[in-house]
């Protein structure tokens, strides 16, 4: 049981987090942010997030601002 908070205006669409998440819970979104980038979104319908914070540690833009476990 965990959750993350994404600041979508910081996301620059490098998609490192999408390949880092061990559960594959971060996906490309079909919406754009203020930079015009297709940002990422956190989809966790089955409460699978373990709060490992690997996404936040690898995010180069600190767009993942909070991780809770």
């Amino acid at each position, binding site marked *: 049981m965990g*959750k993350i908070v994404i600041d979508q205006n910081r996301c620059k669409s490098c998609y490192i987090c999408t390949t880092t998440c061990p559960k594959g819970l971060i996906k490309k979104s079909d919406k754009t942010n203020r930079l015009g980038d297709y940002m990422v979104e956190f989809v966790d319908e089955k409460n699978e997030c373990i709060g490992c914070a690997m996404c936040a540690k*690898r995010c*180069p833009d*600190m767009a993942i*601002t*909070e991780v809770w*476990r």
Partner: protein
Amino acid sequence: MQQVFSIPKSMKKDFRYTFCPGCDHGIAIRLVAEVLDELGLRENTISSTSVGCSVFLYDFLDIDCVEAPHGRALASATGVKRARPDKFVFTYSGDGDFASIGLAESMHSALRGENLSAICINNTTYGMTGGQLGPTTMMGQVTTTSPTGRNAEYFGYPIKIAEHIALCDGTAFSARVALDSVAHINEAKKAIKKAFQTQLDGKGFGFVEILSSCPTNWHMTPEEAHERVRNEMIPIFPLGVFKEVN
């Protein structure tokens, strides 16, 4: 629930990185901010950065900074530290700045054993000016000024900065780390913390070389760039601690 990750307090409020997508500078600056938080140094720190993408550090960190001429970060940091020995002083520069333009200043700071901490981001190219051949460009690597790849006859060989700094007698700590995986990022943070602690203990020069990717100038996606760090850079620039004075 317990919060296991938050933005370090040493970051400026509402900062937004201006680096290219996937650039490892963002991670390196976060690690520096986390270490400053953990050691409680934010109010007592003066940093010195010279020229390159690394210079944006003072847009994001909430600390006092001196801007030095190109390559002279350690020269101005020497002055700051000698004038204010009570302050914590560190420099943050790229490989072109640290090991080409400022090689004399960097090397002699280590030889003098200045009680400073230095961080060098090695991305094997001059990132800000458009990806020219730098002092750490690998053999065969294509850059804008070596379109057929680096060759020894014309360009010579890349410098291994951490090993060279470790050979200086004044160096107390010298390590090379990478940012291509979570495990390596954790090790990088430990190395930065040790280099900073070395200065607090008054042991001498602490140095960390951080292998970083430059997706824009390598013409790769961020993931491909990290693959390159893993498969091409680490075999040439081995990770590890090369000198540690106890």
